[in-house]
């Protein structure tokens, strides 16, 4: 056995092992920023790199007083480099990434970081930063990280990143950066009547317990519809400016501007409770205000188009049934379906021939939002009652609208519908003697009118209360008895007055005069009769009686001269005296043969009446 030989091989093996062992590099320690000039509202990335440090090394990151540290993260990697048969080079690299934001303007300094190992410490260089007002560049996350392809980009029902967050990422507010409310629009510019989607999110880095009293923005100038209104808080991870947040959707609402111009959306507000149980803490947050530019619809709109007709629409008409009996109703549904403000569009009004009576429609809406876009259908259901038999056509309908995607006007149309109204059961069909349909010269269907059946309602009414019979009304009996009573009363009064007058001289005088007038009236009746002497005797008696009543002396037996003197003594006017004497003379002559003619009798009668009339005057 040769022990020496084996010892040499072992030594060679040790050397070979040493020769092929990895080579450890020297410690590298430095820090860098992604940009040297930032805005006051910007955030930037500070990276501290430690390479090949011993495991026991401790890194003390810079804590600059002029900057706010929004987040910090640490990552490690080991690289092994093999080169042409030489030893492998192993390098351990640890990166500390800090997201910083300046707190003031000017030239600021980021102090050096310190690496402490056993018995030795390393220091990086300090970094000079220039801070200007506002924002100068993109956020570090966007500036440095290439956008990753979204594996769910084409997955149906999943909103795109732009739709979720709007065109810009939320700006982390200066205060309350751990918990803030953010309102966003999916677009900054829309056409009048086109949908924009307003989303309200809570961004939080703390645990949330509940959200109370959410006050949505005042949406003046908009028609709005709820798209999403979660009842439970459900967060998802979001990275804002490199800072991980949990984003909770509070409300998502579709808004349709109803006027052109730049419309303002006021901030939303919410009361948010963080923590749990006894550690709960309630805070109030106000979101950002928004503005939306609303462009008017381009010129060239079809005449009569409403400004709300914006979107993409299909129009359809359905009539059921199309063949009915007279008196049976037809249901006609006009449906407008598509994307847009479903509840603010008006389907075209159904028109029909006069033989079809169209009643006011009922409207039903069904919203089926898809990818936060309002879409659905609006259906108007008409009741159509045929008024006579025949074949009628419901004309085609048109719905003009503006499509904001193609930026063009379009018209949705329907086809005409033919309705056939037949005679009802029991009706007499318009058939000829042979039983085949009768074709008249105009080739029109006859209007078949059937006898019998229920008569229609009365469409004009005279509204009256239930009438009481005339004889039961309050006025009837008094009206019936009053005339009888009045007549009876007048007769009684006349009788009483007559008796009272008869008891006085004047009364007697008046009675006598009245009797004389009656006698004259009796003579008047005899004027046409045969006896001339009787007529004149009656007239003479009447005149004498009248004179006795008026002169208050007996006048029978007096000569005409004596009578004339008595009248003169009583103050009777000479003209009247002569008239009286003339009538008495005429009566004397008539009684003894003269004045037999009818005209003469009438003349004497008139003279006698003239004597009596106006005596008192």
């Amino acid at each position, binding site marked *: 056995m040769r022990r020496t030989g084996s010892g040499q091989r072992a030594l060679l093996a040790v050397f070979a092992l040493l020769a092929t062992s990895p080579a450890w590099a020297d410690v590298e320690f430095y820090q860098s920023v992604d940009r040297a000039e930032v805005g006051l509202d910007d955030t930037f990335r500070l990276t501290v790199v430690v390479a090949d440090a011993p495991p026991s090394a401790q890194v003390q990151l810079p804590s600059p007083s002029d900057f706010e540290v929004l987040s910090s993260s640490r990552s490690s990697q080991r690289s092994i480099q093999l080169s042409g048969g030489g030893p492998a080079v192993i390098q351990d690299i640890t990166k500390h990434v800090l997201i910083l934001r300046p707190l003031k303007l000017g030239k600021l300094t980021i102090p050096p970081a310190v690496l402490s190992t056993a018995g030795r410490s390393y220091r990086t260089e300090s970094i000079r930063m220039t801070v200007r007002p506002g924002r100068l560049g993109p956020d570090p996350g966007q500036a440095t990280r290439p956008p990753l392809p979204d594996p769910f980009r084409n997955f149906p029902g999943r909103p795109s990143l732009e739709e979720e967050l709007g065109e810009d990422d939320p700006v982390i507010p200066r205060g309350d950066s751990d918990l803030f409310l953010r309102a966003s629009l999916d677009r900054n510019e829309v056409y009048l009547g086109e949908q924009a989607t307003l989303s309200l999110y809570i961004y939080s880095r703390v645990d949330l317990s509940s959200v109370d009293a959410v006050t949505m923005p005042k949406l003046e100038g908009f028609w709005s519809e709820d798209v999403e209104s979660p009842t439970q808080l459900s967060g998802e991870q979001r990275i804002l400016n490199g800072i991980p947040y949990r984003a909770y959707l509070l409300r998502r609402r579709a808004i349709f501007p109803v006027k052109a111009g730049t419309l303002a959306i006021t901030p939303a507000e919410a009361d948010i409770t963080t923590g749990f149980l006894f550690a709960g803490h309630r805070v109030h947050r106000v979101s950002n205000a928004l503005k939306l530019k609303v462009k008017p619809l381009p010129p060239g709109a079809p005449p009569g188009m409403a400004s709300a007709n914006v979107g993409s629409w299909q129009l359809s008409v359905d009539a059921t049934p199309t063949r009915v009996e007279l008196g049976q*109703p037809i249901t006609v549904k006009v449906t407008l379906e598509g994307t847009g403000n479903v509840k603010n569009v008006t389907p075209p009004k159904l028109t029909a021939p006069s033989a079809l009576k169209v*009643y006011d429609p009922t409207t039903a809406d069904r919203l089926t939002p898809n990818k936060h876009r309002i879409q659905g259908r609006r259906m108007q259901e008409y*009741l159509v*009652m045929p008024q006579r038999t025949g074949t009628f056509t419901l004309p085609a309908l048109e719905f003009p609208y503006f499509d904001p995607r193609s930026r063009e006007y379009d018209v949705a149309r329907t086809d005409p519908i033919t309705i056939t109204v037949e005679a009802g059961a029991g009706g007499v069909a318009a058939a000829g003697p042979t039983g085949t349909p009768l074709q008249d010269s105009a080739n029109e269907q006859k209007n078949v009118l059937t006898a*019998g*059946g*229920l*008569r*229609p*309602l*009365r*469409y*004009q*009414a*005279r*509204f*009256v*209360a*239930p*009438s009481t*019979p*005339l*004889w039961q009304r309050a006025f*009837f009996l008094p*009206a*019936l008895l*009053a*005339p*009888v009573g*009045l*007549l009876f009363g*007048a*007769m009684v009064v*006349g009788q009483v007055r007559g008796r009272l007058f008869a008891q006085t001289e004047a009364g007697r005088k008046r009675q006598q005069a009245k009797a004389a*007038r*009656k006698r004259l*009236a009796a003579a*008047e009746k005899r004027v046409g009769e045969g006896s001339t002497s009787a007529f004149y005797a009656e007239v003479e008696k009447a005149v004498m009686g009248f004179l006795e009543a008026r002169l208050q002396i007996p006048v029978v037996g007096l000569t005409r001269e004596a009578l004339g003197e008595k009248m003169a003594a009583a103050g009777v006017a000479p003209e009247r005296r002569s008239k009286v004497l003339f009538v008495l003379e005429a009566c004397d002559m008539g009684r003894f043969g003269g004045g037999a003619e009818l005209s003469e009798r009438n003349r004497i009668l008139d003279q006698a009446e003239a004597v009596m009339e106006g005596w008192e005057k």
Partner: protein
Amino acid sequence: MSAITAMLVTTLLAQGGYYTPEEAQALFTQANEAYAREDYAAAREGYEKLIAHGQGGPDVLYNLGTTYLAQGELGRAVLSLERAWKQGGRAPDLEANLALARARQVDKVEGATLEEDFLTRLVKATPGTAVGWVFLGAWVAGFGLLLLFRLLTPGRRTWAAVLAGLALTVALPSGALLGAHVWVAQTVHEAVVLSPTLVAREFPKGEARALFEVHAGLKVRLLEETGRYVRIRLPNGLEGWTEREGVAEI
């Protein structure tokens, strides 16, 4: 002050009903539209509201009867149409619907149909209100002219006597006709069977022997009433006692 307020309220109530004419017309139109869409319950409710608040009349009663008829309630249909007829709404459409209702009745009255007496037929053929007004006018005019005759001097009042005679000549027969109306109104009570089936009994007792059955829509005459029973007479003279709630007077 309260008396004045009460008077004002009374005056206002007397001037205007429960509905203004416009409201009544609107309700009437609504009821008609409900009928057109075959919502008979709503139509009936509208008409009955009008009638209940004194805004009825033959037109409303006709529409109510037609609605009942369309709904198949024969008893109330006949009742409403008969009431419309009685209130002077005689027209071809009313006659047609009434004939249709009678044709749908279950009962067919057979046997010698009792002829209505002359006065009843005369009264049915003449409008009571018009007769009443003619009589009253002629009566008042006649006596007014007689009174005037007394006031006028002899020889100048003959015309008054002639006109009074004429007026009283008209008043006499119209008064007699009015008396007939009053007599018929007081003595003749017609009713319509409302119950789908109504049993007529020998005596006004539930356990009395059943004589016959009548059904909704049949027109009968009420002869007397005792307790909750009325004695009815059919057009062919058949008589029996039946429950009061089963019939409604026209």
